């Protein structure tokens, strides 16, 4: 029966665990990597998407741990929240382009994504770069060409390498330059790596990645045909090629030092004469010719750069300014203009333009008594227009009217700072009138989404400080309780320890007695006699005539029992003769006590059978003799 109950309990526990398992699993974000093609030629693009489903909160774009010989470029993100069959699901997708520089099979190890401080990993994936494959085999893939505005043209770097910078080999060096020395937070700063060379050179990628903490980074993929020009530096002719461009967006005002890392290049040893210069580079620069010829690898380290990021001007700063920098335009549309009460209507808001689109935040929504508001969806598409980062960010906001009648979704405003005009600009959506038809239907929320969770706003911490002082000293009794309890327990421990010692001694004595009955009788003789002493005293005090005989009868028994115990004789079989003999042995011949005992026995006999008149003093004398006997025999060591 008990087994059955235990089995049922285990079974139910397992069943409950299995039921809970999907819920637990569903709560964990899932990361998957989607390749459009697992195989591409050298220089061809492989679009790759990292999809994260079930993630809550803000998720940063993960870094792709690409192996040497492959480059990766981030091209944008999109997030999505969907309600299907009453079940809500969210996903974020980060898009990348991989370009293989050398043929081979490559592994991308697990991609790590940090979601709310916890790191999740994808599975490792494989792809192959083949050696053949048309134009892409010998040149990097070309990114889609956008029509370039005047501002989007490759800007001329204005920060040249410092004069003190002396390359180790004057025939080849890399200069890193910024297109401006001063910028505002979140304003694009273009970092360009220019290779100056007098060798037959092949660019191999970054040796050591640049250190750019404090910046949001967007990298431009290299062009298929890298533009190059012949320049004269310190009287020498070089081929200059802008091999890499990175857009930097500083996150906060500060003085920054950018360590541009190191770049790898392989060269053919001898510098070229100017006469064959152009022809030579036309054939070999970034090309596959001479691949099997003897080459030497070089690590080229550009000098560090400095950038001053100044704070935004306070003058004219709108209250809703959220750090957006660039040049944007905003459009908005409502999916319908009439709706039933408690039914959702979606406002789609699109902000488009030049600037760091990733960091754009949704325009603030004023508190509305007549609407519940829910931020449903956002999606960012990144464009690289020449050397300017831009894009489009779409926000979907769900409004649920709570009251019937003519309602208005108010204007929403979005402010940004335009670094070109150095002024703030504020854009407004139109206000949207909405006819709301009365309905008794309750708000339809997806399953698994509590009403409070869906519509409650997040509590934002405005600042931090220490907790306030304590205004009361606290309950003295409670403060001292552990100390008092400890003292009590300690005393109890001492008491129990003593008790254990006593118990062990008693146990030990019992053990010894159990093996030696004579010893037990001898040692316990006094205890046994004294236990009966109370009854004797009572009989002695009694005035009833019949108690006289009972007293002496009892005294006889006590004395005989005591002496039998002491001499290890049977209490029932002990005779006067045997007792006298033992007394003589123990006390010696003619001992006074022996005589007194003999007298006492005689008196007992006479009194029992009523043959003598017994005075009241006789009782006391008899007890005294008994006590003396016990005292004397207890002193005798045997």
């Amino acid at each position, binding site marked *: 029966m008990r087994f059955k109950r235990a089995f049922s309990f285990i079974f139910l526990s397992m069943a409950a665990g299995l039921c809970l398992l999907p819920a637990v699993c569903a709560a964990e974000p899932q990361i998957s990597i989607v390749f459009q093609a697992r195989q591409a030629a050298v220089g061809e693009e492989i679009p790759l998407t990292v999809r994260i489903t079930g993630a809550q909160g803000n998720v940063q774009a993960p870094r792709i741990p690409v192996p040497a010989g492959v480059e990766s470029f981030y091209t944008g993100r999109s997030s999505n929240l969907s309600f299907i069959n009453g079940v809500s699901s969210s996903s974020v997708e980060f898009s990348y382009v991989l370009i293989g520089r050398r043929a081979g099979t490559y592994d991308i190890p697990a991609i790590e994504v940090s979601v709310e401080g916890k790191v999740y990993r994808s599975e490792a994936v494989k792809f192959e770069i083949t050696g053949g494959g048309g134009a892409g085999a010998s040149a990097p893939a070309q990114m889609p060409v956008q029509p370039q505005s005047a501002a989007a043209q490759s800007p001329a770097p204005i920060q040249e390498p410092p004069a003190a910078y002396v390359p180790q080999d004057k025939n080849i060096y890399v200069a890193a330059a910024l297109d401006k020395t001063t910028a505002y937070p979140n304003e694009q700063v273009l970092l360009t790596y220019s290779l100056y060379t007098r060798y037959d050179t092949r660019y191999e990628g970054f040796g050591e990645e640049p250190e750019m903490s404090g910046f949001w980074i967007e990298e431009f993929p290299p062009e298929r045909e890298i533009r190059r020009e012949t320049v004269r530096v310190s009287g020498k002719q070089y081929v200059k090629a802008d091999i890499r461009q990175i857009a930097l967006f500083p996150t906060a005002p500060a003085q920054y030092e950018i360590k541009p890392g190191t770049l790898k290049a392989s060269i053919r040893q001898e510098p070229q004469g100017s006469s064959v210069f152009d022809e030579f580079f036309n054939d070999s620069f970034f090309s596959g010719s001479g691949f099997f010829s003897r080459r030497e690898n070089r690590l080229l380290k550009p000098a560090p750069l400095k950038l001053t990021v100044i704070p935004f001007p306070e003058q004219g700063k709108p209250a809703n300014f959220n750090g957006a920098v660039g040049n944007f335009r905003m459009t908005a549309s409502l999916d319908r203009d009439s709706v039933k009460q408690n039914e959702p209507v979606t406002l789609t808001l699109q902000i488009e333009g030049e600037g760091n689109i990733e960091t754009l935040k949704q325009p603030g929504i004023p508190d509305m008594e007549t609407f519940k508001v829910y931020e449903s969806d956002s999606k960012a598409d990144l464009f690289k227009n020449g050397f300017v980062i831009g894009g489009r960010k779409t926000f979907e906001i769900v409004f649920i009217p709570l009251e019937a009648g003519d309602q208005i979704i108010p204007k929403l405003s979005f402010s940004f700072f335009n670094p070109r005009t150095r002024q703030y600009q504020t854009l407004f959506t139109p206000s949207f009138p909405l006819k709301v038809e009365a309905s008794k239907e309750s708000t339809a929320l997806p399953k698994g989404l509590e009403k409070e969770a869906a519509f409650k706003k997040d509590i934002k911490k405005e600042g931090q400080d220490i907790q306030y002082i304590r205004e*009361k000293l606290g309950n003295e009794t409670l403060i*001292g309780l552990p100390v008092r309890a400890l003292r009590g327990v300690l005393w109890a421990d001492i008491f129990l320890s003593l008790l254990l010692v006593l118990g062990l001694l008693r146990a030990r004595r019992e053990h010894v007695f159990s093996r030696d009955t004579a010893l037990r009788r001898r040692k316990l003789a006094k205890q046994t006699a004294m236990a009966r002493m109370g009854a004797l005293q009572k009989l002695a005090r009694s005035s009833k005539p019949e108690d006289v005989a009972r007293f002496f009868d009892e005294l006889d028994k006590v004395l005989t029992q005591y002496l039998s115990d002491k001499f290890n004789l049977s209490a029932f079989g002990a005779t006067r003769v045997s007792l006298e003999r033992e007394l003589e042995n123990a006390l010696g011949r003619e001992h006074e006590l022996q005589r007194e005992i003999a007298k006492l026995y005689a008196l007992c006999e006479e009194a029992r059978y009523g043959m003598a008149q017994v005075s009241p003093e006789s009782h006391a004398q008899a007890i005294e003799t008994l006590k003396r006997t016990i005292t004397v025999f207890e002193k005798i060591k045997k």
Partner: protein
Amino acid sequence: MGLKKSSILCFAGLFAGVLFVCTAAAAALPAPDNALFEKANKLYYGEKYAEAQKIYSDLLERYPSHGALAYNLGNTDYRLGKTGPAILAYEKALLQEPRNPDILKNLRYVQDALEYRLEDKRNWYLRAAELTLQRLTEQEVALVLGLAYLFFMLGLLLPLFFRGGLRFGSVQKVLTVVLAVALMLYAAKRIEMRVIRDAIVMAKKADVRYGPSEGDRIAFKLGEGLKVYVVDRREGWSRIFLTNGEDGWIKNDSIAEVNSK
């Protein structure tokens, strides 16, 4: 062996009596002057932090067992910009009330603002052990040990008196393990409190040297408010360990021990 029921009851009564007398007779903690405490609170509220700090400090010196005094002293020290003394006061408050969330929050808040940071390179089990020990007062650990011993003794005594001999069955084995664990916990707490003593750097910048003299070479520098572990004391110098594994000698006047009387 078997004792009479009356004897058992007698023992139980005696036990309960001793327990009661000891618990009731234990002297209550001396209570600080509440009026003075409230006066300091009013001064704090009125942003007169220096005056409030003096009163809290005097009270704490006289009544070190009151965590509230140390906590309020930490707050006033922090308001006065004294990071090291504030951290020291919070650590003292934690000795009395190691799980108090306000003390823990304030300590973490002040530590976050420190100029120097120490990486904790110790093994996870050492960190976990320290965290566990720090969440218990010495009295609480002693109480755990006392209770474990009490149950262990009962586990021995009950069979001795009721069954006539010592037994070492499964119950006694479990109680022995519990006692051993409690004993280890107590030993660890004693080591933490008496042997490896926590201390806070009180100087703005302090040199830590390879030996206990000015002539020894500087190993590294420490900033105010950092926690160190004192393992040895000489005249004027203490040998300290850091959580990142570094060690050295520091001048005694540059640090203050948390558990100093």
